[in-house]
């Protein structure tokens, strides 16, 4: 893609043309001109807060995104959605099925839904998911919703992307305990007990509240509310919408948003550096002399130091 073509797509993006949104997302996702595109996009985005919906497989994340979208549309907001599903680690292929539940919004011009495969990235999102959200924002979709892969753990990645982390669990399952073990308690801004039309919802809510009590002082700045919903019967959705609005107002008014964005920036920066370091390591390793390797079998830490020195050209960067 020539610079002129790219500039034309970027102009069309700012005119909120849907084809431009879609094309630029593909470019960034495929890593074709990603840095240049994002340089322009970032100048026109970053104000919107991202609501990230996460939780175990099948808890109703897509159904909740659908219901929330309906709620925001009734307020006249334009909604941009990214839904991530896992890519096969063997073939790199993926079946992206979250859209099925969001069909009702497909032809609404004020809603844009984009499915992404993880393409080898771990932690429930894809490498470029943060960028895709910003492209949607620059394209005129001010209300941003992110559905992660259905995972029960390693939720830290969602912190890099979402300003409001909504953790969805179901009644009558071991989800609550699993979530606590996996460290979800710490990252959740809001808990949702979805499928509250099924038995055990109140009990689940109480379990979560109790864990929050136990967490006590060391917990988050703001105690996460626990909201009961049924996406199926459209119950509790306004309550969830309000819980999100309150948390986002708190972020803005307390100035926490600034701190949060800096933590996100730190993670994002590390994320890129990790790729660079890995590439450097992969390039260095074949040059390691045989006697280093033999010595390394006896003293692996010594080898690490030597490899690090070689990678960094002897400069002290630590």
């Amino acid at each position: 893609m020539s610079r002129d073509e790219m500039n034309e797509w970027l102009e069309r993006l700012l005119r909120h043309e849907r084809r431009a949104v879609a094309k630029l997302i593909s470019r960034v996702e495929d890593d074709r001109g990603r840095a240049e595109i994002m340089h322009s996009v970032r100048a026109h985005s970053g104000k919107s807060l991202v609501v990230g919906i996460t939780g175990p497989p099948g808890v109703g994340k897509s159904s909740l995104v659908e219901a929330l979208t309906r709620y925001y549309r009734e307020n006249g907001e334009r909604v941009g959605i990214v839904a991530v599903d896992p890519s096969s680690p063997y073939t790199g292929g993926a079946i992206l099925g979250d859209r099925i539940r969001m069909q009702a919004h497909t032809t609404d011009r004020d809603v844009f839904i984009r499915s992404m495969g993880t393409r080898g990235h771990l932690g429930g999102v894809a490498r470029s998911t943060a960028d895709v959200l910003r492209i949607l924002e620059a394209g005129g979709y001010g209300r941003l919703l992110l559905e992660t892969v259905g995972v029960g753990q390693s939720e830290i990645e969602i912190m890099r992307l979402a300003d409001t982390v909504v953790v969805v669990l179901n009644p009558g399952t071991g989800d609550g305990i699993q979530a606590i073990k996996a460290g979800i308690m710490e990252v959740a801004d809001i808990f949702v007990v979805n499928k509250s039309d099924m038995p055990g919802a109140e009990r689940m809510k109480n379990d979560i509240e109790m864990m929050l009590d136990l967490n006590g002082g060391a917990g988050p700045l703001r105690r996460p509310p626990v909201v009961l919903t049924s996406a199926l019967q459209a119950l509790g959705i306004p309550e969830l919408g309000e819980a999100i609005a309150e948390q986002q107002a708190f972020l803005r008014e307390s100035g926490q948003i600034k701190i949060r964005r800096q933590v996100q920036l730190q993670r994002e920066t590390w994320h890129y550096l990790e790729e660079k370091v890995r590439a450097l390591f992969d390039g260095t390793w074949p040059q390691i002399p045989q006697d280093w390797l033999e010595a390394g079998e006896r003293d692996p830490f010594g080898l690490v130091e030597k490899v690090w020195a070689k990678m960094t050209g002897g400069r002290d960067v630590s």
Partner: protein
Amino acid sequence: MSQSRIRVLVGKPGLDGHDRGAKVIARALRDAGMEVIYSGLHQTPEEIVEAAIQEDVDVIGLSILSGAHLTIFPRVKELLREQEAEDILLIGGGTIPEEDVEVLLRQGFAEALFTPGTPTGEIVGWIKQRLEKKGPEPARAND
């Protein structure tokens, strides 16, 4: 490093309620390394084209068993044209009589149609070959 993937929207327009064929194809395409956006049952042509545009797919694959192929394929093509998205390939499968296959292909209402029982490998091969011709940086009319 480019991470390009072929993206395919698999849709099931019409009123018949069974999508086993569509799912088999979806899995075969995934196993061939493609990203398959599965959009579910009972899709209207408008929904299919809109989803294809948002997802920026290279190919739309329609599974039709309801006998509505003579209206659905031309309608999808027409909508793609209206959206300046004719670069998206349109293919299909299902129970389509041979004479209709010929008509649809001749009039350019579909790029390829596969009859039931076509080995999935053949469909995978067709897609890969067609997209290879476009090259890694496709020269598209409106791109």
